């Protein structure tokens, strides 16, 4: 049986593009989210990129 004492909350470890997406979707669906990021700011590797393939969109 699932112990649900703290089941309304979720921890996401990593604030890159995938962690942010998971955090947003869970928060938007009614869960309390803790987003833990190792560095000083979220954004991850994508924030380092100039453009992205195949559309050449700016990655910021």
């Amino acid at each position, binding site marked *: 049986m699932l112990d649900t004492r703290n089941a309304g909350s979720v921890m996401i470890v990593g604030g890159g593009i995938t962690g942010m997406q998971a955090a947003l979707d869970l928060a938007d669906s009614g869960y*309390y989210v803790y987003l833990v990021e190792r560095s000083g700011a979220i954004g991850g590797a994508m924030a380092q990129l100039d453009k992205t393939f195949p559309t050449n969109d700016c990655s910021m």
Partner: protein
Amino acid sequence: MTLSEVVAISGEAGNFRVTVKEHPRYVDVNKCIACGDCTAACPKQVDSEYDAATGRRKAIYVKYAQAVPLKYQIDADSCIRLKKPGACGFCERVCTAGAIDFDDTVKQHQVEVGAVVLAPGFEAFDPSTAGVWGYGRYPNVITSLQFERYLSASGPTEGHLIRPSDGREITKVAFLQCVGSRDENKCGNGYCSSVCCMYAIKEAVMAKDHVPGLRTSIFMMDMRTHGKDFDRYYQRAKEESGVRFVRCRVHGVEPEGDSGDLRIHYINEQGRQVEEYFDLVVLSVGLQIPGHVKKLSEIAGVKLTSDNFAATSDFTPVSTSKEGIFTCGAFAGPKDIPQSVLEGSAAAAAVADCLAPARGELAREKAYPEEREVGGEDPRIGIFVCHCGSNIAGVVDVEAVADYAQSLPGVVHVERNLFSCAQDTQDQMVQTIRDKGLNRVVVAACTPRTHEPLFRETLKSAGLNEYLVEMANIRNQNSWVHADDKKMATAKAKDLVRMGAAKVARQISLQPISVPITQKGLVVGGGIAGMTAALNLADQGFEVHLVEKTSGLGGNARYLGHTWSGEAIGDRARRMVDKVAGNENINLHTGFEVTTAEGFVGNFRTTIATRDGLTKTIEHGVGVVAIGGKALRPREYGYDRIPSVVTALEFDRLFKLKEQHALGAKSVVFIQCVGSREEGRMYCSKVCCTHSVQSAIELKQEDPGRMVYILYRDMRTYGQREALFKKARELGIIFINYDLHGKPVVSENGKQVTVEVWDHVLHRPLQIDADMVVLATAIVANPDAEKLNRLYKLSVDGDGFFQEAHAKLRPVDFATDGMFVAGLAHYPKPVEESVAQALAASARAATLLSRSQVSLDAVKAEPNLEYCDGCALCIDVCPYHAITLVEGSAGGGAPAEKKYISVNKAQCKGCGLCQGTCPKRGVAVQGFTMEQISAQIEAALAV
């Protein structure tokens, strides 16, 4: 929680206790206003991690200009003061906010959560560990990440491509692929990193844009451009941009004297050894799991694969080996941005499945004071002029602007702020609005794109309607672009403030529109993707209607054997079918097709019908389209004419049934890219390389004496599938590369078939006598896509696959709100990617279904029935199909029996095209009425 890492996890699914260690920032985030004075004063410079060591940063710094949170931090390893108490401390002295805290310490937090998602990402392979590429020794050998920073306008050279050694503009650059990937000797990473081929092409194309005439060469073994629209990009790079591709792995880089140039040896397509010089060499470094992530996986107790990625099942691609702990992104295998974003959503779906009973228990809604009615009042405008540190105040005479603002009509309060967006300033603004009884606000600062939501919040907190604020952009559109003319910039700032005040004086309170949501989902298509989405939504507690055109569930899974990692597809699919049938939240409609559809997000009404004309109508709030794809029926290589030429799916069946012809074959030839990657179907079908390699391994293992050949164009066993390719080579399966202009020729030869192909290694034609020829046929789109496209206003690309809202950031959303896509209907993909996408679609759908109503922005078109004469011009220009023509009495004193327009507020995005098109002022966008815009223009001209 930034600067934080997980150091311990205890407990189990539903009730984890996580210990988080927060490292000191030495800057108080509540006080820091990110003015940058500290960085300017800091004397210590070190390499910038963000710029991949191509640029420098200070010991006190912000990770990058757009960082969230935009708060400075001190790097304790390089800070002079932190290493030697009493020394330096310049930052503390210049910080007007008093945010520097050298006594900050490590903090431990205990957090109790129901589930944990691990999304720790990857690190780029460090090529200095192997000496052969000269990285770290020759300055003009750089990594692809460094090249990315050189290309970036925010990079160390602001986008100018110069050589690190001497600053000369580059003229000839080589990209070396598979550095740190597909290589067990030099780095131990046997897998393919999946993304480097595409980023190298992109960097080459971008570089040619930056430097006209630049010569770019990409040295590769296989071009792995297997994603959606990737092959087209590759073709364009080759044909339009002139990027050169050389099929050869380069094993070393040597310097050419002390010129800074670099020498590369390679074997060209004619088999000759060639020596070529380049002035820059870019190493396309692979992705790998960093040491701290391996540690994290130990802490979490999750299993890793031999490549150190999180181990998952292909049918639960975001679940780790430990219940309640999930994974997404590159942690579970190298992948690109859309696949990572999609997995983020998929992990959310898997978490929601696990924690559904507790949804909403801990989520908090922010509370606001009651809104004050300001309708009857004269405007009492407050103007807040922001210095933005020195961003604005360094150019614009803000004091003069504030003095001037005082003289404008309706203005009762003016003040200046160092940073209007800082938290303490916000609190103060709320107080000022209350104390002075303001009922309109102008913030003269930066752009509404990023900051209007913040100031709307400020108004709400002060008890004012959030739409009673106007921003005058005196930074981006003024101080930044007129830095050389301070006098004119100040005059323009006054103009912008005057215009803002004129507009906001005529602004009325607007109420956000809320639309009720039918909390039910519709899933179209009962294959793996459709069933996965339906089951996940149902397990989250939502009612789902699953519509399948044929008489049974399972889709293409019924014809497939194994996933790449060897999991039996048939068994899992059958279990899924049973689960769907037994799930009380799922209404299954097999043998039904969608015939009509109407409505919009939250409120769709779809009619489905059987062939016999039996119809049902379904009301639903969201829809997931998962109608799958099909295998192409080939028209070449003698298929249909020669009995021993079969498709891959046919061969699988024959082999499984132990049919004599297949089992007795002593020589089998696989031909790849049958119908894929050629004119008319310029895309890669993504699964066929892996499928053929798996079949070939099975054939060879069953009978090692059997000759097995795979004729391929590029072997695309991406990611950890590369291990299969390696195994196949070790088993003695023969791989022969052919190109599009030299396709193999198949002819009947008695009982056997002869396959003729040009051998690029031997440089002569090769004839293979085969007992069976297996064609790896393309996956083509389901023709029903066109129909659904019309019914729900979705979009379909040139290949017939559905087009997602954004290739990178919204990979499962349609541009039409409330509709989502999953599986082969979107693009060819293997089972685990279909499952992940279906979970993602379900998560995205659940963000809507979990609420009883959706709140929409109040800036919408509003018809003025007094002026609208029903000419319908606006209907044609509306890109969102939000306007309809209505006939009859509009009520409210309008003449009876006339034509007029009606706007569906849920579909309207407030773009204003209707207002611009209307010749009669019959429609206006709230917040941008003609009266407001005229007042703004008059104010602009009134100098």
